[in-house]
């Protein structure tokens, strides 16, 4: 028997539900000074820590005082579809207003691959959003990793798929792309915020950053098809700047909101 085998027994002992210690465990404890010491410590702990009656009464009156029926939040799948619907509806509206380049404008047929990366990023962000809205969900990839992976994948896709040094000044139309990209991203942020508010926001700054990145992806998607500069330096510098600026803005706004006290719960007064 190893020290790690003793772990379950320690927990049960703390909760006051321990079974008698088996022979093998007793033999291990006799030979292992740290386990023996921990066993002695655990056995001395009081099991029962009753909650003060007054506190339970206060909580009960607080809960029962405003008890109304509430429907459960929509399923994970429906929430993901909602975010994706918002993403593509906004992108289509922006295409309709701004127009799309003819496909001949792309010197290399790279647009389907970049569109695939953008769509994949949107799906990953929608799943991450949906998981963040529902506490206690099983999470396989932590949301900050998703954020980083989407931003890096987009940057790498541009670097590897868009031709370099196609001529022309790469800074000339840069501010134009960034400006219009962010103009598309702003209503996107509002739409995603409204969708996210249907759940609970436990980590506002992470949610703000995710929201900003996803809104920025809408802007980047639109600019990818509306921008005539099919050149890697321009796109890496200015098109990647749209989701990154969205991420930074979302994180900053959420941080400011927290400092100013928005979004938190109000301070209660004891009756």
């Amino acid at each position: 028997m190893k020290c790690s085998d003793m772990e379950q027994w320690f927990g049960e002992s703390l909760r006051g539900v321990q079974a008698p210690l088996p022979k093998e465990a007793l033999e291990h404890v006799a030979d292992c000074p740290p386990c023996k010491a921990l066993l002695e410590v655990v056995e001395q702990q009081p099991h029962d820590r009753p909650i003060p009656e007054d506190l339970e009464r206060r909580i009960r009156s607080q809960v029962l005082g405003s008890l109304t029926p509430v429907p459960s939040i929509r399923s994970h799948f429906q929430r993901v579809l909602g975010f994706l619907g918002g993403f593509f509806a906004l992108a289509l509206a922006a295409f309709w207003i701004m127009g799309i380049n003819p496909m001949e404008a792309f010197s290399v047929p790279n647009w389907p691959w970049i569109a695939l990366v953008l769509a994949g990023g949107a799906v990953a962000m929608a799943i991450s959003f949906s998981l963040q809205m529902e506490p206690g969900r099983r999470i396989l990839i932590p949301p900050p990793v998703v954020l980083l992976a989407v931003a890096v994948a987009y940057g790498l896709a541009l670097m590897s798929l868009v031709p370099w040094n196609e001529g022309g000044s790469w800074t000339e139309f840069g501010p134009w792309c960034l400006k219009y990209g962010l103009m598309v991203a702003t209503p996107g942020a509002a739409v995603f915020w409204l969708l996210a508010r249907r759940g609970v926001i436990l980590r506002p700054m992470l949610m703000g950053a995710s929201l900003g990145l996803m809104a920025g992806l809408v802007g980047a998607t639109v600019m990818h098809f509306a921008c005539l500069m099919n050149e890697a330096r321009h796109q890496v510098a200015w098109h990647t700047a749209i989701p990154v600026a969205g991420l930074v803005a979302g994180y900053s706004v959420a941080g400011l909101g927290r400092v100013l006290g928005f979004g938190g719960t109000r301070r209660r007064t004891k009756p």
Partner: protein
Amino acid sequence: MLADPIPAPSVAEPRPEEDLLTDLMIGYQQADEKSATELVRRLSPILFRFLARQAPTRSDTEDLVQECWLRLHRARHTYRPPAPVLPWVFAIARHARIDVYRRRRHALAREIAVEMLPEPPYKAPPPAVQGPDLFKLLDELPASQREVLLMLKVTGMSLEEVARATSTTVGAVKQKAHRAYDKLFLLLDTGKT
């Protein structure tokens, strides 16, 4: 070879208590007073035990439990049956604790110190036999390891439930728990209590 006498903690075995909590939670969402009262009765001591070790005073612990309930109440629509209830509760509770701690630290930074008697820290009833206090030992652990150990051992949640509550993977929870144990053993071994 001998069979393992102490089975490893189950990963996702449903327990009767869990089913009851799920039923109570459904009733709570439907504004059933009996379910809400029973849920408060069952969950409050668990929350109190979990938070008592992470708040400086008894009054802070009570405030924290009340704050948790306020948040649970506001977020009750985000529970989706038949998901396990405890990970949902603890995911909200641990963020409530972090927010309250942060808010208090922010407020303390602005306050001007005045002469007053500090409130005595929350102390559990003295143990029957004098010896090292386990919870003092736990205070020596990093916050994330202490939190995982409290959920696993004091609250009795499974690895899967703790992983859900802390938004991490089962592997990460196992790793934190083992590191916490290693440190506890080290502390006991060196007599640093």
